[in-house]
């Protein structure tokens, strides 16, 4: 697996994704489920919207005081017998993990789900050092077998169908009887559980991510449904936590506020099955748990995002709601985004982390429908930030010429409201005329990229502005 970014080819990636029948079938599974479950969970908790405000404010406060909370956090981790390794870059973070593994002579490493690990390309780094990384989250395990990167931050294998998983299991689990039946998801799960159970018990080091870090107590938190993260961190002699700077929150009370919006936004559960708070290594009277506890804390460009127009992005708690509700993600899936973080959050974060020159297309992968912002539990203004990137990209002359002239044309009209209204009225009337029969366009000149995969709704006739004026007058 590699973190080689294909984000620069977003358009080509998206094009392929739209033609990929298996992917389209898999995406169908997610287009409604996540949305319904979140809506239900939110509706059942009258305080949900107020909790989102609270979650946003906690994150804002923490980011404003991040240097001080980091110092407090580090002190607590050290007091409890753990170690914090500050790392500027993925390379430094990989080196820190390798050093810990080598000191223990580690040969196998089990891994809980961690997006930071993907960001670091840790599995590659481990393999190169002859250490065998085993992903244990079912979805991550499946994509590791396939040599892919996650296509979703909480459902990494959402782009696959069970037939594909069956084929991978038959290819890799060659020690199992050839004639076994593997057609049902439950059979696949049972097989993975059996195979991975042995890995858990044999691993030398366990590596997990962190959903939150608590400054008050020096605690790291993982949130999972499978329990794989817990087996990963409890059984081996060494537990390494991979986290980025912005995971910090002040207190147990603060994290409780965030937990109340996290699972509801992600999967529509009130709480995920396992929320695990870990503080330091095994205590003197403990009969289980790791002997060493390390936190590898990655910056990778985040400290530079503070105080700027992308600071809000650091509030993200990785719930996945923005991609679950994104029509672009629904159409092309996560891999088209070409790097670790897909969907609207990826479109904003990726250019910050790997550079706008490589990920400049991503902020364009938006219809600006605003659904991502409307469901984001920490109220990140995602569309606004995608617009920031577009403006920057435009200013840096990175957009292709056709795009630029199109935008300039629009800007010209937009600056002359009367002319704009006139031009759009003519345009809309013409489109309404052409699309009258079915109310939709099957194809449009110059817009094949749109109409090949969806119909363009035909305008009803008058422009929004014209209707607004008319109806305002009628009131």
């Amino acid at each position, binding site marked *: 697996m590699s973190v080689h970014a294909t984000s620069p080819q977003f358009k080509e990636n998206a094009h392929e994704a739209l033609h990929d029948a298996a992917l389209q079938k898999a995406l169908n599974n997610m287009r409604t489920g996540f949305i319904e479950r979140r809506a239900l969970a939110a509706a059942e908790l009258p305080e949900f919207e107020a909790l989102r405000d609270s979650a946003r404010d906690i994150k804002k406060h923490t980011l404003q005081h991040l240097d*001080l909370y980091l110092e407090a956090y580090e002190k607590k981790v050290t007091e409890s017998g753990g170690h914090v390794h500050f790392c500027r870059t993925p390379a430094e973070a990989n080196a820190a993990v390798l050093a810990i593994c080598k000191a223990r002579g580690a040969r196998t490493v089990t891994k809980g789900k961690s997006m930071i690990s993907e960001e670091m390309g840790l599995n590659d780094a481990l393999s190169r050092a002859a250490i065998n990384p085993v992903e244990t989250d079912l979805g991550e395990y499946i994509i590791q077998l396939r040599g892919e990167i996650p296509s979703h931050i909480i459902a990494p294998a*959402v782009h696959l169908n069970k037939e594909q998983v069956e084929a991978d299991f038959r290819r890799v689990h060659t020690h199992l009887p050839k004639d076994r039946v593997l057609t049902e998801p439950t059979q696949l799960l049972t097989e993975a559980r059996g195979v991975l159970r042995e890995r858990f018990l044999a691993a030398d080091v366990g590596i997990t991510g962190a959903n939150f870090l608590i400054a008050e107590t020096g605690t790291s938190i993982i949130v999972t449904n499978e329990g794989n993260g*817990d*087996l990963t961190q409890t059984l081996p002699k060494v537990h390494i936590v991979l986290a980025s700077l912005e995971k910090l929150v002040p207190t147990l009370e603060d994290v409780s*506020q965030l937990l109340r919006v996290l699972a509801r936004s992600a999967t529509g559960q*009130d709480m995920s099955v*396992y929320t695990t708070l*870990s*503080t330091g290594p095994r205590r003197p009277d403990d009969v*289980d748990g790791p002997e060493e506890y390390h936190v590898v804390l990655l910056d990778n460009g985040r400290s530079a995002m503070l105080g700027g127009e992308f600071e809000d992005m650091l509030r993200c708690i990785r719930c996945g709601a923005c991609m679950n509700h994104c029509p672009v993600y629904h159409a092309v899936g996560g891999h088209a985004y070409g790097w670790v973080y897909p969907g609207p959050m990826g479109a904003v974060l990726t250019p910050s982390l790997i550079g706008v020159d490589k990920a400049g297309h991503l902020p364009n992968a938006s219809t600006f429908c605003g659904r991502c912002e409307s469901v984001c539990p920490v109220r990140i203004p995602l569309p606004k930030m995608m617009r920031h990137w577009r403006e920057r990209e435009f200013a840096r002359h990175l957009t292709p010429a056709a795009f630029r002239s199109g935008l300039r044309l629009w800007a010209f009209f937009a600056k002359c409201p009367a002319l704009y209204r006139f031009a759009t009225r003519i345009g809309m009337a013409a489109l309404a005329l052409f699309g009258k029969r079915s109310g939709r366009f099957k194809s449009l000149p110059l817009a094949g990229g749109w109409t090949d995969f969806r119909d363009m709704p035909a305008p009803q006739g008058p422009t929004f502005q014209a209707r607004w004026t008319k109806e305002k007058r009628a009131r």
Partner: protein
Amino acid sequence: MTSARDDILANIRRSLGVTGAEAPRRSNVATRLENAPRGLIPARGQIDPTARVALFREQAERAQASVMEVARRADVPGEVARFLRDRNLPATIRIGADSRLAGMQWGETALEVSAGRSNGGDPNAVSHAFGGVAESGTLAMLSGPDNPTTLNFLPDNHIVVVAASDIAGDYETVWTRLREQVGKGTMPRTVNLITGPSRSADIEQTLLLGAHGPRTLHIIIVGESV
């Protein structure tokens, strides 16, 4: 060459336009860490003790745990035996050193009881919870020799005993109790908040129980809620 740590802190301070020495910022942080102010607590769990236990039960069952209420601690071994018998599960359990469990009359049942952490070969474990949270049907488990963490995850079937009087309305109340027990600013090595049995929906969004952790979670609530 400066250390990565100093570099990162310096970078953060540069971005925020601060030095780190500003008194108001320092006192903001110190006060927040010291006072740990409660945020917004859902009304759902703020109910009288009897209703709270009922809500806990309802929420835990919604998360696919099974729940049984017994009147007295002495009823626990019989209920554990019944649960295992009804499901045709092996009549063996693993427990930690928790005196509330170790002191029970297991001899009055046909159960084979062994003690200590799990190494993966135990079909069933019985643990005692530190407390419960009614608003989401969540159990709070503390690590240590009394209730080793491995018992929460390795066995196929996990049975958890919780005192009705330890069921709070919200997480915050559990943290307050925990601080009273272990001291502010310190924590047990692991606190597991557990809401239902292990599950995965990673294959075609089909929700399946028993991913890597226990396939079943049975909760035994002991005693009246006061």
